[in-house]
């Protein structure tokens, strides 16, 4: 695939993070190429969500370096201004949607465009509506999050991220808070996002999604990257015992490829 020759757009080196005495990330390196869909798998407590949140500075890593696009920082002494600059290269889709409760669906999508990107007013509404149409919710533009179902809220959350046109979109278990029957449509939508060629890093437990959509799968455990590779390499021929153990528990043998 041509993506393999693309430039590296996200580069994480030796990232460490601890909460008090608990070391959550013990030196993590990852590389993401432009347009790649990277899925991070791992048991709970493996640090995958923390890693994702460190990329967006929702958690502040203790040390390491981070590069997104042409902006590179030392995480130990990153300045407020740099944090803002890097955040504006990313967008985040939350597990619990986290839509702005005091804003309508359309305002949720346009908030970042207006406040952070200073997009002219005339253009903002159009781009907001485009994003909502793209997630097939234009009729809910005037609804508040409390008036939307979980699945609809997550679609607005995805529209909000996509509308920012970021270098990379970070998905933190985007379907784990949803009703089982809404998971499918949300995953379809995320596949559609992937289809646009935008770079994505997805933390998820949806194995079939990882297999279908990922260009690269990263398996994390105990604060380390244990193994990474193409979906086939990870799912069919896992090299590490820990990966094999994890996958056998998640995917019962009769369903595995």
């Amino acid at each position: 695939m041509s993506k393999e020759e693309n430039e590296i757009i996200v580069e994480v080196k030796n990232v460490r993070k601890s909460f008090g005495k608990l070391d959550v990330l013990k030196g993590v390196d990852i590389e993401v190429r432009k347009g790649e869909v990277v899925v991070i798998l791992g048991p709970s407590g493996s640090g995958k969500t923390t890693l994702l949140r460190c990329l967006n500075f929702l958690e502040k890593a203790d040390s390491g370096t981070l590069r997104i696009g042409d902006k590179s920082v030392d995480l130990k002494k990153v300045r407020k201004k740099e944090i803002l600059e890097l955040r504006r290269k990313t967008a985040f889709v939350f597990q619990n949607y986290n839509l702005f409760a005091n804003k309508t669906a359309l305002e949720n999508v346009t908030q970042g465009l207006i406040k952070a990107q200073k997009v002219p007013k005339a253009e903002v509404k159009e781009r907001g509506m485009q994003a909502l149409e793209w997630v097939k919710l234009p009729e809910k533009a005037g609804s508040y999050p409390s008036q939307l179902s979980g699945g609809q809220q997550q679609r607005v959350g995805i529209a909000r991220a996509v509308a920012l046109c970021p270098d990379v979109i970070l998905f933190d278990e985007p379907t784990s808070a949803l009703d089982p029957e809404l998971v499918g449509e949300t995953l379809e939508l995320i596949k559609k996002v992937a289809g646009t060629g935008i770079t994505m890093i997805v933390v998820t437990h949806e194995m079939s999604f990882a297999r279908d959509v990922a260009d690269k799968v990263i398996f994390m455990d105990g604060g380390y990257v244990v193994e990474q590779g193409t979906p086939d390499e990870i799912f069919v021929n896992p090299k590490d015992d820990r990966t094999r153990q994890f996958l056998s528990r998640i995917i019962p043998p009769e369903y595995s490829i």
Partner: protein
Amino acid sequence: MFSIKFFLLCLKAAITHIPQNLIMTGLVLVICVILGTGIALIRAYRVPVVCYIFDFLMAICKVLPANLVLLIVFVIFNDNFKRVAKALNLSITIRDVNKMYVAVAALVICCISGISELIRSGIMSVPKGQYEAGYSVGMTKSQTFFGIIVPQAVRNIIPPLTSTILSLLKTTALVSVIGIEDIMTAAVGEASITYAFLEAYVAAALVFWVLGLVFEVISGLVERRYKKMA
């Protein structure tokens, strides 16, 4: 025997003093909301050292009875006014100061902890995810705070604040302990000539009841407006 004639006399006196109580309520409320917001922010975001001082002060303010605070503040005011005025080179005597402001100061002490606590819990009840969502779309801390957090906090604060205002209005009836003219003292003042105390008290009660009723209606409207937005 209940005399309608005296009752109406007292009622008239009480009604003419409604503005006094409303002004006190309004002033105390405005001061408490402004100071209370500052204190609430300091306590909600745990500003080092200062937050502990306010934790302590608020704990004291919370437990003091209003009439006691009124008396203490009044006595302190009386005893020290001359000295302070002299030190500040002010050529005013204690008679030039409207005692209502003394009462307002005392009532602020009584009410600030309650109102500050309301504001604090209003801010704290906005989930962490709302801040994170703001940061994640590239908004600055202050854009997130004023654009996302404050409007949601206000919505949480308005309903409980309306009931606090009502009890504040009732507390203003206590200012008579330091000899300020208000609805209560005006009604009772009429009675001291005629000894029609029951009439006076009922007249004052009627005035407070009607004020409370009007206020309930207004706060009901405000609450409905805010519910719609959620």
